[in-house]
């Protein structure tokens, strides 16, 4: 009788190795980021419904549950950004006869871009909405 060997992987395979645990944590950042994206989507929906609905959405952002969600999403987004940028030089390999860029330069460029874009966005929000500046 034919009896092929069946490799078995226990369901909790990722729990017992720190590298696998870090991998699963990185993959898990998708869940809070999905919920945060749905939060943004509801904002666009309420904006389309009118000023009263949009005002209610702004107030809803300040409820404890939404503050906790945004806090967890912020931690997830930071972990995502760090791990994503670290992977870029492994995926984006620029090594042809015409153009050759060392992986550490690719990494540094993406680190600077991520830092600049994120800080720029926060700066723009503060600059446009700071109460004293009044727009």
């Amino acid at each position, binding site marked *: 009788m034919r009896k092929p060997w069946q490799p078995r992987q226990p369901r909790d395979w990722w729990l017992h190795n720190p590298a696998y645990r870090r991998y699963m944590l990185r993959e898990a950042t998708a869940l809070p980021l999905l919920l945060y994206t749905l939060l943004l989507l509801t904002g666009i929906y309420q904006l389309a419904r009118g000023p009263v609905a949009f005002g209610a959405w702004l107030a809803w952002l300040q409820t404890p549950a939404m503050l906790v969600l945004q806090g967890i999403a912020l931690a997830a987004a930071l972990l995502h950004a760090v791990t994503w940028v670290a992977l870029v030089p492994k995926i984006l390999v620029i090594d042809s006869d015409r153009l050759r860029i060392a992986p550490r330069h690719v990494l540094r460029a993406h680190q600077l871009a991520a830092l600049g874009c994120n800080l720029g966005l*926060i700066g723009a929000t503060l600059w446009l909405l700071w109460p004293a500046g009044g727009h």
Partner: protein
Amino acid sequence: MRRSHEPISWSLFGAGGMLLALIGPGLIVSTLLLPWLTQDPQALYVSFSAGLRHPLGTCAALAVVALPLYHTAHRLYHGLHDLHITGPGWLLGGVFYGGATVLSALCAFWLLAL
């Protein structure tokens, strides 16, 4: 042979991942600050709806919602495999990639309704 959807789903995953790395944390800090910085919700409504009615604003908002939807759908879809949660491919694919597509279409519809 049936064509794989992987090149398309991975491209959307990659674009969403890059967008989230570039502006994700900044965007979340901004929405955390938004209600506290807003003195006049009415004025914010007017400037937001004007900004999103501009074609560039519409495209930017759609990208900021749709690409992270595809990114997270892709990661969660493959995460189920890692957790040994299995099911018919058409069902899981339909829920994750189909769900991201439906929500992106809704986002486009609401943006155009502004």
